[in-house]
């Protein structure tokens, strides 16, 4: 969460009225949005901060830098394809990347639970060091706190990142126009479904790995090839692509129309979603991003992404239209359509 600093003198109105914090307030969907906009934003950022992006820009001695922070809470700590340490580095690097910035330095905070085995901690610190090296970012400072046994799930990690603005690109949801193309870097849902399966509670197995990675190389390739045409980017983490696109639709007041047959989803992810009654558009990703690109740059953008390492599955998945305003609509080849809302709470498996 971040926003331009704009404290004004008017009294703020607190719209958040839920009596207590529920898990849903952290799930990245509607409830999270309500908490952020109803409580944090009015008290911390003032009344009208404008659209909330993945990172904020601040100016220091005339130089613009991007800054963001993210906390990582994941059970289990490690899972096929990654672990909390990698997520903590890549997540923050990605938040900066989709804000049009290259991560330069990270600050790390560990909250450790008494009783955490040292080898587990060491493995996660090693994973962070490797992820930071791969992403080309320096870990510059850190802090450690320990809480009593039973007060945390082994460990929590918070990373704060500062980044240099990439040249030739400006990210602003309000610059999105009718006719723009919606791009997706690769298949949806790998991370969320991997975690759901790795928890073991559902007794499901599949050959599936989290997609956690730095998307910076793909973002850089996109910006080099189509920078002036890139209007908006977002990494669809918790809440999935549906939530990210709903936020965009609301911020720009236009309709996001997706073509169902163009949305890449692995068969295994689709199978798990069918079995559990989930929608891949609501499932979390950790190594993909969405971009809105003006139509004349769309081909160049897809070409550049497809040629970049890890971008071969990039696709145009939809386009921006005037209607349905403020809404995400998925259309099918046979002419059916459905509205896809933001996620409400956590995605829960259903039987009916």
């Amino acid at each position: 969460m971040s926003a331009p600093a704009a404290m004004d003198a008017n009294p703020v109105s607190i719209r958040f009225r839920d009596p207590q914090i529920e898990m849903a307030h952290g799930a990245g969907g509607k409830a999270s949005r309500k908490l952020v906009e109803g409580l944090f934003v009015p008290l911390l950022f003032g009344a009208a901060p404008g659209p909330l992006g993945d990172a904020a820009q601040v100016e220091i001695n005339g130089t613009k830098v991007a800054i963001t922070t993210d906390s990582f809470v994941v059970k289990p700590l490690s899972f096929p394809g990654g672990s909390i340490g990698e997520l903590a580095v890549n997540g923050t690097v990605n938040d900066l990347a989709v804000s049009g910035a290259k991560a330069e330095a990270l600050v790390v905070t560990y909250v450790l639970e008494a009783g955490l085995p040292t080898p587990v901690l060491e493995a996660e610190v090693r994973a962070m060091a490797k992820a930071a090296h791969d992403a080309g970012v320096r870990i510059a400072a850190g802090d450690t706190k320990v809480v009593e046994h039973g007060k945390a799930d082994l460990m929590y990690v918070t990373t704060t990142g500062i980044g240099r603005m990439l040249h030739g690109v400006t990210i602003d949801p309000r610059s999105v126009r009718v006719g723009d193309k919606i791009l997706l870097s690769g298949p949806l849902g790998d991370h969320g479904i991997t975690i759901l399966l790795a928890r073991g509670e559902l007794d499901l197995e599949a050959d599936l790995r989290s997609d956690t990675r730095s998307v910076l190389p793909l973002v850089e390739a996109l910006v080099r090839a189509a920078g002036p045409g890139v209007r908006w980017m977002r990494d669809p983490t918790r809440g999935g692509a549906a939530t990210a696109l709903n936020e965009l639709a609301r911020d720009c007041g236009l309709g996001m129309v997706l073509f169902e047959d163009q949305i890449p989803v692995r068969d295994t992810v689709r199978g798990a979603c069918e079995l559990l009654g989930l929608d891949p558009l609501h499932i979390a990703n950790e190594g993909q991003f969405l971009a809105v690109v003006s139509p004349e740059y769309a081909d160049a953008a897809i070409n550049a992404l497809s040629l970049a390492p890890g971008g071969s599955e990039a696709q145009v998945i939809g386009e921006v239209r005037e209607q349905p305003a403020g809404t995400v609509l998925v259309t099918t080849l046979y002419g059916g359509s459905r509205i896809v809302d933001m996620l409400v709470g956590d995605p829960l498996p259903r039987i009916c």
Partner: protein
Amino acid sequence: MRFVDEFRQPELISRAAEEIRRLAGTRHYRMMEVCGGHTHAIYRFGLKDILPANIELIHGPGCPVCVLPMGRIDDGLSIAQQPDVIFAAFGDMMRVPGTQGSPLEHKARGMDVRIVYSPSDALKLARLNPDKHVMFFAIGFETTAPSTALTMMRAKAEGIQNFSVFCNHVTIIPAIRAILDSPDMRLDAFIGPGHVSTVIGCRPYEWIAQNERKPIVVSGFEPLDILQSIVMLLRQLRAGEAKVENQYKRVVPWEGNRAALRAMAEVFQLRPYFEWRGLGFISQSALRVNDKYAKWDAEQRFDVPGVRVTDPKAAQCGEVLKGVLKPHQCKLFGRECTPEHPVGALMVSSEGSCAAYHSYEHRKAAMVASLSSIA
């Protein structure tokens, strides 16, 4: 064959929709899809967009979460408030509000609440936690009841003492009867519940055709299944027939599943009556655990308050359930009653017609309205 994608082929869908348009002509038809799974599929696949306007689909009562009265949720949660009890339920139940909040809200306050995918997973929890009692909050129609029954038979056979079932299983036929008995009901035909019929078969619907003179087609859940069922209903209606037909032959045997019915008969007996949210009390419409399995029946094993909670008067769930009102015609729809804060039953489950309408449809309707006002 994967038995899924084959039934989503765009060109066949378009052709089926064309055939429906041809058969429907200009007459207005009102068809009820009994099952919430069909309601969900109709919205999920956007089938309303390709059906002619004179085919009106009315959403029926077949959503076990929607029809569960709030008092039952309170009762189940009150058992779980006793020390060392684990509350296990399907994900569907987790956000359903009781008077003191939903299972998830109770979990946030410290209750041991677990989401299970299967009743057998709840029994597994009991095996893994011998010092705790696992109470499985069972919901569902005849599709789900046999799985609960078999799980209880396994618990009995293995002598697992720390497991019980809070049984809310309901039966579909009395609910259809209640709807047909409603004086303000005008229906031409029924899209019959496919997965319930894997268990009960097609015979139990014969009275609908014979006595009520309404065609019913037991239907699958893929877009082509639903469209083909509508074609079959239209053919019957045009021929002036009223029969039970089985569109979902690849899955539904005409006679149902004997082994599943035996398991249900072994463990359950009919309740004299049961309260349905929105429909009121319906006689012989639900199952309870019989005395042979009393040890595994949470209602016999624990003190249950059994309090009745009346639904907010302003919510018009009953009218929507019976198809008298469309979801958005309810006074509370989209204002006091939303998927995040459901007031009425039908907003609770993603299968509930109000929730489905809210998620998938109402802004589309608003969009059409705004476009036509411009024009």
